[in-house]
């Protein structure tokens, strides 16, 4: 294709977009809605996913030792645990560290001064973090072996097992549902925009027929529609990002008030922190949907 032909086709695409402005407006608005739905669901799912990940990351097992256990025994135990592939991190907490942590937790309360550093009753412990929350059960079984029983005072996991398992189940469910809903909504939105673009092209069936009859080749017919699809994508991205930004500012205080939590703040932070990535993703998705749907819709009119 020569440069002259390319500029001619490009100009034709832009002129057609403007001359069919009502159809273009309808397609752009549907595309805007599509992008808004995709962005909101993707952001919500990512935030939920991030929140659940941080909850799961906080789940750990703490092994408290009897005072009779020797340092060598604890170090050897620590090495054995660290050698496991499902263990992410093992941290030793000495009596002194336990006291500092206790005092920090109880700061400002009288109970904080109750413990004398010289007669510290707080046990030494190992904090074990798993690579995946689901492995905690196996790790707890390993820690509960009879060989370790004499030096172990208590294992925190045994007490919280039910709550932890429920939390693991709930977060997994939440993540799956989030992605499932996003997937379903994205699919529906794509079908709607595909149908809209098909309708805009259908109303111009005669135009395509005339183009063919005066000897236009496939590119001359196809490319202007692709350019129109591209314009739908770009304009819809700009509008939907604006809507998203304004919407966040309006909705965040309301959501905070109703929910009494900072989930919406997290959304806002996520939005402003990842603005360029979100805009980039939207423009890529918008252009891909615009061009893809135009190509699919125009295909059947190019025969003969």
């Amino acid at each position, binding site marked *: 294709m*020569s440069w*002259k*032909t390319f500029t*001619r086709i490009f100009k034709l695409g832009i002129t*057609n977009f403007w*001359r*069919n402005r009502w159809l273009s407006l309808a397609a752009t608005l549907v595309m805007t809605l599509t992008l808004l739905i995709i962005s909101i669901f993707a952001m919500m799912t990512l935030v939920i996913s991030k929140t659940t990940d941080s909850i799961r990351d906080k789940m750990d097992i703490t092994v408290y030792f009897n005072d009779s256990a020797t340092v060598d025994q604890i170090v050897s135990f620590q090495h054995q645990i660290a050698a496991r592939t499902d263990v992410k991190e093992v941290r030793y907490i000495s009596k002194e560290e336990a006291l500092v942590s206790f005092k920090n937790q109880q700061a400002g309360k009288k109970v904080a001064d109750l413990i004398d550093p010289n007669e510290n009753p707080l046990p030494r412990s190992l904090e074990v973090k798993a690579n995946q929350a689901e492995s905690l059960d196996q790790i707890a079984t390993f820690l509960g072996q009879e060989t370790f029983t004499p030096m172990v005072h208590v294992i925190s996991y045994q007490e919280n097992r039910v709550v932890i398992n429920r939390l693991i189940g709930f977060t997994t469910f939440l993540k799956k549902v989030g992605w499932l809903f996003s997937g379903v909504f994205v699919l529906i939105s794509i079908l709607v925009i595909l149908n809209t673009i098909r309708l805009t092209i259908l109303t111009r069936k*005669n*135009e395509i*027929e*005339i*183009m*063919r*009859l*005066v*000897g*236009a*080749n*496939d590119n*001359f017919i196809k490319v202007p529609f692709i350019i129109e699809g591209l314009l739908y994508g770009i304009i819809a991205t700009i509008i939907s990002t604006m809507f998203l930004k304004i919407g966040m500012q309006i909705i965040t205080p309301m959501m905070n008030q109703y929910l009494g939590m900072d989930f919406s703040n997290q959304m806002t932070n996520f939005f402003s922190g990842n603005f360029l990535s979100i805009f980039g993703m939207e423009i890529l998705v918008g252009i891909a949907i615009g061009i893809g749907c135009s190509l699919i819709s125009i295909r059947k009119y190019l025969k*003969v």
Partner: protein
Amino acid sequence: MIEIAGATKQYNTVKALDNINLKIARGEFVSIVGPSGAGKSTLIKMLTCEEKPTTGKILIADRNIAKLKSEELPYYRRKVGVVFQDFKLLPQKTVYENVAFALEVCDATDEEIKDRVPKILDLVGMLKKKDNLPTELSGGERQRVSIARALVHSPKILIADEPTGNLDPINSWEIIDLLLRINRQGTVVILATHNKEIVDRIKKRVLLMKGGKLISDRIKAGYCI
């Protein structure tokens, strides 16, 4: 110039064209007449390559256009001008742009377009209305623009499918007069029509079709079914 040899077109059990054989020489004016369903439009569609014959050949300048590949079709269509009953003008483009478009798709330069479009619009008497949209024109004026578009890349063949079907008698005669003038300049004109009066008065070659068959082929004849 044009030779149709044994062309048959079958749609399921219906034969739209049945073993058509004919030759059209350079510079001829041929009217194709016949009742509805006679096969006139199918024959026209074969010549514009919108349909391909089930069997047989359609030779234009010794080339069988029934065998053209899809990527060759645009180049063939640029060499044949076609005029339709419903004008088929692009509604969003002005008169000038409609005619220029036929040149744009042929990769003509801007200078060529600027040179040829006004001349052809002048020939069909539409230069004064070059900036109007098709919706602002009468039926006769639209058909003139359609003819201008068909002629702008100087085709050797002009095919007119019921060009006067939507026009009143005066406009119809003006269009026929224009087609005759174009024919006098050496272009083959193939006119499919129902209009008896026109066929009787122009006294040119008449092909009569019925039930997909070519019933008669008469030189300087009138309309007779």
